[in-house]
């Protein structure tokens, strides 16, 4: 093979921006060592493939001159995890590497612009808008677009594809709670879209043309078990249904689907997820050989020697991959080719994991073959199958029980000889991370093998899972391999090292380290803390975390800086999507009076509050209030703040207990009101929802609260770490005690423990999952430690503001509740009444 990379250091690379250019030059100079520097490389496409090529290339050759052109208006992100956007995550959270990473590696990045034309002979690319870039070699990573079924009505309002953040935003907008959604396509993508929609509260129907789900990855028996598992999530599955037409109403909006045979399904939202099609327009226009994808050889080089192609747009030995794992294999080969090495890509074993909570599914290689062994448990809904071809492992299907995935995937990838197929299946289910060969791929999203993870842990002295994820990228994709990463870390370093989680990526310090600075230097404000340990940069996202940290360490005797608080904590109300606010007065234990209800009704009338709603926490919510109205509304309500806008103690729900209920075993109302009074006004790492139930029937849902008390025969049970939101988790039983005072004391000790130990924005359920109930028991039940916790609770509580709404009489700044051109409505003098 001829050396195709020439060294032409005189060719100047046009730079995206002057500062990035300066970075690139500096980086190039810094790394100007004996190693041959590749020519200037143009990477077209900012998807996972484009990013992988940049990363592989600059890792192999620091100082390589690389320009990345992204058509999407953002840096490369993890498209595999798109479903997380429907669960409420921000697109920014999926970004593969932070902004600085590109500058630090000297990669010039252009976002939001397409390459309009490529002239490989001349080595020039012209961008939309006319600007020209020069390059020596180009890598096309143009990916793929959603395949849109050619059926009537497909362009109507209410029909979406599921391909990028914009699609997710449009789906989120359209998915009004309760509107019925149909997903066309029962493959991996369609099921993930359906799962996301179901999470939004939409009744969902998956419509699939074939007679089984995921027919490309699954065999009949696995698909037959998958369908009921999906239906158990509340998603209807229609197999053998070809959609012939999307029905529209008079306003051109979707009203349903019509299937072959005439049957109809009413729906207001349609997501088409039938597959993807390689994006090859640029390659065609450039005159490259294109079939179903851009044809490449084993070095990932297209029909023009200066142009390579990687990822979903590339066709290698007749195969176009539509999943993530092969991209990394291809990118590694492409990078080596660009560096003048002889590298051969021999194809990848396709492997897929379904990212639907509660349905564990892994499929790799063949789903059916000449010889296969399967272990199926139809009652438990588990299915494990190993396919053997020519005496070697050729495929796996694991459903419901995915133990040993890495070991089996490695066997399939390497084509390991298999004599005893059942034995291998059984062995895999017992395997730990220690049993994996070094070459076994742990992270399929980012193509990271065990050896690389272990080496990074050893050589860079990594001490926590987040660090290992950040350095190796293993676990940075869908996250399903994070437990294996943590296991490897524990094997390498012993189990005691799991500690360092940075408070924020913008400052490499943990919560404990920052708390230490606050204590040692007697810091009282966020500004002082930033000055004492800032790196001169501040992302803004961590200011509320710092504000909480300072207030917690100082026992609420800190200097309050409102600029470090989220808007909700500046105006003591919850901002809504239209910029208005919601007002929830405190109603301890969910108990109110006719007089309070009259005042609420009067306020709602007088201020024409658009919506009055009873909340899940047994409160009354006034929605759609303008900022300027807040002080006057609070005044006329004459009730204290319910803190429903803050990371703070929210509510204590109660059932009626022995006061009225004939089953009641304890006075849940009295204890609930007392507990709420004892906890209110305290800020916490994340919101804290509590409840007190008068008997194990649990009408106040105490098992799924951050703190839940339950009266039982002869005493009380204290549960902590329960949740019934995006995550559902039954709380752990902290202890069973005799008297209501004991239950209250334990609840307060736990609250203080959580306030001191949890990471900011870590709910109690996450905290309990992380440290385990035993660690919490050790801290909270030990009499000496408990006394110390309760003392610190009392100190914090005594300085906590029980009612920030009193700022209506003494605003912290002149326009706290108004804009430059508005005034807040007038508030009378303090009455001191109704407290």
């Amino acid at each position: 093979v001829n050396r195709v990379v020439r060294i032409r250091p005189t060719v100047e690379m046009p730079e995206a921006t002057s500062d990035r250019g300066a970075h690139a030059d500096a980086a190039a100079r810094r790394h100007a060592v004996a190693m041959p520097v590749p020519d200037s490389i143009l990477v077209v496409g900012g998807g996972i493939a484009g990013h992988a090529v940049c990363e592989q290339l600059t890792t192999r050759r620091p100082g390589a001159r690389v320009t990345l052109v992204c058509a999407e208006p953002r840096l490369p992100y993890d498209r595999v995890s798109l479903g997380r956007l429907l669960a409420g995550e921000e697109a920014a959270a999926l970004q593969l590497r932070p902004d600085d990473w590109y500058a630090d590696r000297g990669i010039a990045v252009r976002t939001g612009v397409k390459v309009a034309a490529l002239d490989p002979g001349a080595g020039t690319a012209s961008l939309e808008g006319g600007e020209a870039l020069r390059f020596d070699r180009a890598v096309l990573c143009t990916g793929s677009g959603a395949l849109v079924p050619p059926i009537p009505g497909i362009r109507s309002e209410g029909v979406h594809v599921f391909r990028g953040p914009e699609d997710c935003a449009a789906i989120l907008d359209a998915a009004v709670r309760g509107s019925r959604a149909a997903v066309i396509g029962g493959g991996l993508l369609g099921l993930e879209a359906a799962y996301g929609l179901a999470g939004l509260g939409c009744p969902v129907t998956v419509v699939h043309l074939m007679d089984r789900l995921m027919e490309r990855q699954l065999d009949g028996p696995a698909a037959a078990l998958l369908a009921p598992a999906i239906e158990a999530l509340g998603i209807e599955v229609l197999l053998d249904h070809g959609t012939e037409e999307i029905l529209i109403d008079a306003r051109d909006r979707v009203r349903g689907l019509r299937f072959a045979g005439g049957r109809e399904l009413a729906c207001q939202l349609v997501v088409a997820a039938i597959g993807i099609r390689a994006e090859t327009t640029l390659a065609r226009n450039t005159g490259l050989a294109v079939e179903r994808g851009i044809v490449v050889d084993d070095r990932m080089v297209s029909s023009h020697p200066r142009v390579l192609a990687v990822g979903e747009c590339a066709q290698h030995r007749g195969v176009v991959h539509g999943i993530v794992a092969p991209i990394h294999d291809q990118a590694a080969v492409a990078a080596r080719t660009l560096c003048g090495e002889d590298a051969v890509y021999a194809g990848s074993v396709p492997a897929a994991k379904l990212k639907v909570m509660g349905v564990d599914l892994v499929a790799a290689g063949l789903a059916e073959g000449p010889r296969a062994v399967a272990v199926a448990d139809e009652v438990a809904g588990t299915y494990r199958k190993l396919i053997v071809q020519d005496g070697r492992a050729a495929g796996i299907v694991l459903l419901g029980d995915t133990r040993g995935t890495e070991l089996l995937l490695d066997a399939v990838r390497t084509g390991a000889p298999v004599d005893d197929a059942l034995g291998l299946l059984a062995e895999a289910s017992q395997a730990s991370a220690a049993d994996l060969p070094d070459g076994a791929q742990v992270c399929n999203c980012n193509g990271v093998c065990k050896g690389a993870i272990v080496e990074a842990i050893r050589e860079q002295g990594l001490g926590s899972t987040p660090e290992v994820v950040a350095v190796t990228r293993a676990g940075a994709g869908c996250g399903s391999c994070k437990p294996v990463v943590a296991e490897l870390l524990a094997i390498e370093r012993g189990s005691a090292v799991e500690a360092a989680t940075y408070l924020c990526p913008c400052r490499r310090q943990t919560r404990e380290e920052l708390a230490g600075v606050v204590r040692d230097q007697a810091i009282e404000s966020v500004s002082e803390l930033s000055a004492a340990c800032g790196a001169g940069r501040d992302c803004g996202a961590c200011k509320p975390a710092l504000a909480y940290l300072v207030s917690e360490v100082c026992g609420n005797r800190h200097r309050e800086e409102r600029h470090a608080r989220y808007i909700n904590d500046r105006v003591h109300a919850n901002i809504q999507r239209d910029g208005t606010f919601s007002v929830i007065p405190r109603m301890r234990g969910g108990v109110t009076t006719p007089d309070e209800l009259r005042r609420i009704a009067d306020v709602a009338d007088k201020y024409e509050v658009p919506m009055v709603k009873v909340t899940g926490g047994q409160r009354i919510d006034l929605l759609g209030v303008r900022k300027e109205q807040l002080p006057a509304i609070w005044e006329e309500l004459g009730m204290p703040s319910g803190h429903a806008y803050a990371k703070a103690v929210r509510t204590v729900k109660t059932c009626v207990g022995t006061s009225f209920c004939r089953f009641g075993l304890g006075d849940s109302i009295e204890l609930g009101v007392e507990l709420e009074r004892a906890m209110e006004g305290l800020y916490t790492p994340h919101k804290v929802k509590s409840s007190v139930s008068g008997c194990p029937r649990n009408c106040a849902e105490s098992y799924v609260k951050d703190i839940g008390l339950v009266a039982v025969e002869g005493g009380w049970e204290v549960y902590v770490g329960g949740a019934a939101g995006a995550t559902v988790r039954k709380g752990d039983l902290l202890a069973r005690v005799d008297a209501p005072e004991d239950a209250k004391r334990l609840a307060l000790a736990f609250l203080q423990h959580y306030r001191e130990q949890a990471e900011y924005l870590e709910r109690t359920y996450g905290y309990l999952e992380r440290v385990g109930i035993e660690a919490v028991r050790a801290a909270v039940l030990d009499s000496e430690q408990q006394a110390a916790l309760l003392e610190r609770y009392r100190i914090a509580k005594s300085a906590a503001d029980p009612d920030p709404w009193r700022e209506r009489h003494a605003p912290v700044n002149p326009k706290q509740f108004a804009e430059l051109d508005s005034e807040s409505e007038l508030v009378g003098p303090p009455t001191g009444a109704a407290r």
Partner: protein
Amino acid sequence: MSEPSWVPIGRAADVPLLEGRSVRFGPRRVAVFRLPGGWAAVEQACPHAGGPLSDGIVADTCVTCPLHGWRFDLGTGARVGGSERLATFAVRERDGLLELRAEAEAGLALDEAA
């Protein structure tokens, strides 16, 4: 080209340090921020979902939208990690009053006196 004219929009004292407040200015609302090094003004509505940027958290020279966390550089109006760009406005403080320049486009809109 005529002399730029400055339009008074409110009292400087009404905008606390590292916070913003909005004001109507011609056809749209503008968010005015007090930074340690001077003043900055950008259009109020976040291009993503119309979030009120004056209610966002300010750090360095950036503001984060309170609704979904989009972040913008207040000097250039450019979105951090994206290609969207907010309109920016020249703003200055004169005798305790804030003024916006009536003319179109402006670069880093810092107080000339600062």
